[in-house]
């Protein structure tokens, strides 16, 4: 069948469109660096992570990334049958994705931990709680950092 120039061009055009669209849509809307995902999978394994129960208290705007106060709390009765086993905190853009792992038990009474962390850039911080029934719950918060930590020169 003889192909006219017009037909050829429209075919080539649709092929290009069909070829490019999947590449674009394969990219996730919010790029989560592979290191963060790997670090989370390292702790969680293949288990499903649900959103909720965990509360992450960090100032949304941080002037100095060298010391950022952070409090993680989990809604849990903390009884012998229903308690928080551990809390894991991760970041997205520091040189290393881990921030800290905190191991609790029923005698903790309250599932809440505070510390001070470093943030190298404006980024997302993720807190994941592992409950006694081995379910995982998470919360993610976006934090704007004006002065970065970690990578500056030593004086």
């Amino acid at each position: 069948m003889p192909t006219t120039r017009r037909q050829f061009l429209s075919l080539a055009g649709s092929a290009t469109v069909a070829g490019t669209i999947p590449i674009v849509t394969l990219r996730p809307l919010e790029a989560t660096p592979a290191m963060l995902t790997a670090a989370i999978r390292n702790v969680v394994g293949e288990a499903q992570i649900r959103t909720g129960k965990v509360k992450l208290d960090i100032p949304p705007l941080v002037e100095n990334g060298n010391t950022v106060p952070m409090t993680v709390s989990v809604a849990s009765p903390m009884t012998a049958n229903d308690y928080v086993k551990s809390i894991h905190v991760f970041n997205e853009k520091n040189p290393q994705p881990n921030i800290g792992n905190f191991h609790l038990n029923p005698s903790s009474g309250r599932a809440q931990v505070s510390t001070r962390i470093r943030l190298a850039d404006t980024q997302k911080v993720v807190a994941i709680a592992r409950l006694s029934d081995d379910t995982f719950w998470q919360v993610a918060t976006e934090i704007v950092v004006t002065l970065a930590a970690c990578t500056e020169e030593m004086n």
Partner: protein
Amino acid sequence: MAALINVPAKAKRGDIIEIRTLTSHIMETGFRHTADGQLVPRDIITSFTCRYNGTEVFRADLFPAIAANPYLSFFTIAKESGKFEFEWIGDNGYSSTASASITVE
């Protein structure tokens, strides 16, 4: 090494008490360079444990993303009078301990 420990001196049996600890440590990340381009080797505290009359009640794994002079606050139930023992372990054989007593009525 200098450590600041805040444990209530007295508590009622069954009270949930807050324990706050602060220890002095540089927490060198291992990602910083000197002005002449040398990488500063990592020197951090990697582990913190709190024991209440010998039983572990709280443990933390720390990473370079924890700020210098690590501050940690957590909770526990006051069960009996006795002693809280705190231990920090880190790079280059770093080890530091502290303790605090509590009276439970």
